[in-house]
Every structure is written in structure tokens, then in C-alpha cells.
């Protein structure tokens, strides 16, 4: 039972860095929303949201330093969410 992996954790400086990245991401999202980019507006907004979520998951939630099992668990969660959204949309997007 390996325990050394779990004890590795980010430094406070890294936390601060991630925080600033998240703040920047939020500001960019806010500002880009004011420009008309048509279909790309929601795409960019959600892409930035995904990057922010990944940063929180990797560093604040320590996934970067966690076991394979934990990483698999997180991926399974998003995969299942994807199944639910995609298969439901196969109905709604193909209705005549």
C-alpha cells in the first residue's frame, strides 16, 4: 500500500498561482462575452470553464498527486455525464 504518493502536495505558492489563473480565466470569460462572436461565444465560455475546472481538480483537489483509482473515478464521472447528455440529445436533435 503505497503512501508516499498521497503525501506529495502542492506548495502554497502553487495554490496562489492557480488562484490567479482562475481569476484571469473568469475575467477573460466576462470580457469575451461582451463581444459578438456568434456561435463561438458559448464555446469559448465553456472551454474556459473546463480549463478552470481542470485546474481546480488537478491542483486544489490534488488529482495531480493522486492514485490511478482516483483519477479513474473522476474520469468515470464525466464519462457518465457525457453518456446522459449525448444519448438524450440523440432524441432531441433528430426529431423531425
Amino acid at each position, binding site marked *: 500500500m503505497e503512501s508516499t504518493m498521497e503525501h506529495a502536495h502542492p506548495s502554497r505558492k502553487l495554490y496562489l498561482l492557480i488562484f490567479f489563473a482562475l481569476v484571469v480565466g473568469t475575467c477573460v470569460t466576462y470580457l469575451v462575452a461582451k463581444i459578438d462572436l456568434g456561435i463561438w461565444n458559448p464555446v469559448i465560455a465553456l472551454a474556459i470553464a473546463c480549463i478552470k475546472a481542470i485546474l481546480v481538480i488537478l491542483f486544489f483537489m490534488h488529482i495531480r498527486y493522486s492514485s490511478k483509482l482516483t483519477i479513474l473515478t473522476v474520469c468515470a464521472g464525466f464519462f457518465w455525464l457525457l453518456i*446522459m447528455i449525448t444519448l438524450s440529445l440523440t432524441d432531441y436533435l433528430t426529431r423531425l
Partner: protein
Amino acid sequence: MSTATQPASQLVMPAKHYLNDNYGIRSWLLTKDHKRIAVLYLFSITFFFFVGGLFAAMIRLELLTPAGDLFTSDTYNKLFTMHGINMIFFFLIPSVPAVLGNFLVPLMIGAKDLAFPKINLLSWYIFIVGALFSLATMVTGGVDTGWTFYTPLSSGFVKTHVILMAVGILTAGFSSIFTGLNFIVTVHRMRAPGLTWGRLPLFIWANYAASLIMILGTPVLAITLILLALERGFHIGIFDPKLGGDPVLFQHMFWFYSHPAVYIMILPGMGVISEIVTCFSRKRVFGYSFVAFSSIAIAVFGFVVWAHHMFVAGISTYSAMVFSLLSFAVAIPSAVKVFNWTATMYKGSVSFETPMLYAFGFIGLFTIGGLTGLFLASLGLDIHIHDTYFVIAHFHYVMVGGMVMAYLGGLHFWWPKITGRMYPEGWAKLAALITFIGFNLTFFPQFILGYMGMPRRYHAYPEEFQVLNVLSTAGASILAVGFILPLIYFLYSMRFGEIAGPNPWQATGLEWETSSPPPTHNFEETPIVTEEPYHYGADREVTVVP
């Protein structure tokens, strides 16, 4: 450590075990012992099984005659709704996981308890709270929307206690989530030394797969019921077409959980059958890895077929074709299991104790039920048999002929471990036979009825369907006897049953290597596993724990 079993006359109950370790109601209601919690569940779900059975009896009584003369149609709607809700949420879903799973999972993996004993107890309390909501609904007039709660009937039209019932069900759902969470963490993190994944009993694989479904599917039911309650309470239009909502969306969200739910119900039963078949064939399971992975496959595939309940609801035809194809695919892993159980028995030394009788019943009846599922999965055919008795017969074959038989088989198989005493074998065999006959007489006619066009959820029907309905009701009365007998002799055996000893079946598995009943901490010493599971063979040493 002797190498032979002790003669029956020398078997004694262990001096201290989990049942007599502590006395008093507080030691039970505040227990953290997974075995006691399993027993608490056993009593709770047995109660709800008979409540659900009572509703079934009333349904079958009404259906004796073509006219709807026993109950008004509104009351009849309540009967089948409460039958479904009680049986599904308060009996079937907890049955094997909460009773047998809770008891056996730590024992089978050589652990002292589950990972989170307090959460385990909380899970039982949450179940009881949900059950109380359900009982409250029943005594204040019940619900009449069908267990499926389709909108806008449930969100806007009926005057019955939909919200109260929805809260009860969603509460019971959280109980299920906590049980599943506990099992997953336990199996990952608390296996005994040497117990690799490839050496786990198939019962563990099955419950693990069911637990995956519990944690991934049940939350969607929770949010669906919350939205239903909000819509009904505040008259907002999420599913109500009059207010701009889409009733089919409710069905998508509802079935996203409720289809995988049927696999929550059946997978643990399949795990039980694997254990029974191998023991009473004295032969290792044929194709262990296939059976193990088929459990996971069923769990995963089970999530992508839900709209086969909605073929005639107005979903797009293209989407229906996709779901139909996937529904055919999900039958494959189940078939794999049936083939492997059969192959296990081939050239084995088969004996016919009660658990094995139930296992035979399961294999035959589940196969019939499963095959009829393919009829329903076929788009063209479903148009004709959807919402008929064909569907009812199909799911009762898999749920009663399959799951309930598996549950009873498992109860009989592990009864000596749970109580330290044997049930009376003669009566048990009789009950198994009566159950089998009663079951087939009740539900086989329903296939024919459905095929002939009798709709479900109707309390009045055309004259020409009466003979089959009478047969079905007759069968139900026989089936009732088959279910009541075990209640009587199990209770009897708790006090007067023959002392079982640690391993009355000469079975493999860690749970049989501790006393019957086990001590509170399960094992005197943490076992170390060195052998494959189901290592039946002439050279097998039988360990007897004094």
C-alpha cells in the same frame, strides 16, 4: 486444525457471536456491526415484501372477473402503483445488497467490517425514513400515477400525494447510494492479503457492479423527483406541455435511472446464483473471468438502453433504432452468465438442496424473462406489446422468477451462517416447489394475455380474457403459500433449527471459515488468501473453526 468435519451431534453454537455479543434495543439500533445492520434490513424489507404482496393480492382478486367490480378504477390505480413502488424501492432494490451484501461482503473479503460502518447504519435509518413516507402516503390515500410517475398526470392532474411519495422514494434512493458507496470503497481498499481481484467471489463482483449502478444512476432519479415535486408544488412548467415543458423529458430522466435500476435488482441475484451453482455442483465456476466481467458489462451497458421504455412516447425514430440495437446488446452478457452456470454444472456432482432448487428455478425463469425482453426491444414488435400484459409477464419473470428466487436461494444458502441454525430442509424444498408452480401459473398466462392485447393497468377487460386471468389469480394464491412458508419456517428455525456449524455446505469462501454465527469482529485472525476461488476438489482441506 482438523482435516475432517465434526459429526453433527458434536456441533455447538459458539459461545460469543454477533447476535449475543450485546443485548438490548440500543445495541441494535445504534449498532455499527454490518451483520446486525443486515438483520435490521432483513426484517424491514420482509415487511415491505408482504405489504407489496397484499396489494398484489388485491389486484389479482379484482382481475378474477372481467368487470371492474371490486374496486373503483381510481382505487385500482392506487393498488398497482403501491404494489410497484413497495416492491421495487422498498424490497427488490435493497434485497440482496442490503441484506446478504451487507452481511457477506466484509466476510467474503476477510475484513472486519465495511469501510464506513456509521454510514452503513445511517443508510438503514434513511431507508426507514423513506419507508415511513411511503407508509404515510399509503394511509392518507396513496398515489395513483403508476410507479413511473409520468407527467403531466403526476405533475398536474392527480390529487393524490405525489410529492409525499416522491420524497419517500428519493430518500430510499439515498439509502441505496450510501450502501453502494460503502461496497465500492470496501472492495477496493479492504481486501485481505492475497485476495486479488481475480480471486474475489463472483458475489462480490456482482455486488460491486450493482454498486456502480447505484451511485451513478440513483442521483438522477433524485433530481428528477425533485423537479417533479417543484413542478407540482409551484406550478412551474418543466414537464407540463401546457406551460411549455416536455413530458418526454421526464421520461428520459426517469428511465435513465430506472432502467439501470433493474440491473441493480438482478445483478446481486446473479451473484448469489454463481455462489450456489458452484457449491452444489462441487465444481469451480466455468469461465470465472467471463462471469466477472459480464457483471461489469451489464452495469455499463445498462446505462445506454433506457429509451427502450419510450419507443411509443414520441422520441425520434432514429434515436429509437439506436436504443433498440443497444438493448439487444445488453442481453449478451446475461446470456454469457447463463451459459457459464450451465457449463459449471456439466460433469459436476450436482445435488438438490433447497438453494440449488432456487438456482435452477432462476436459470430457467430468468432465461425466459430475458428472452422476452428481446421481443420488447424489437421496435416493430414493441408497438404491439408495449403497455400490455406481455411487459408485465416479462418483468415478473426476471424480477420474481429471477430475482426473488435468487434472494430466497441466497437466504437459504447463508441462513446457517447468519443464524447458526439450519432451516428444515423438507419444508424448504416443498416451499421451493410450490413457489415455482405458483409463479408459472400466475405469470405464464400473462404472456398470452399481453400478446392477445390485454392492456396493463386496466381493472376491467373483455370477456375473452377471463379464463387466463382466473388461471393467473389461482397461481397467485399458490405463489402466496410458497412465500409464506419460508416466513414461518425461518422464524421457527431461529429458535428450534438444527445447529449448523461453520460450514454445513462444505463450501469454499472466507465466510465459511469462521464460526456460524460469526463473532462481531468476523475473524479471530485476518485470513490470508492463497488459493483460487471455488477450489473444489477431492484434495480440499476443510477447516473447522471451533
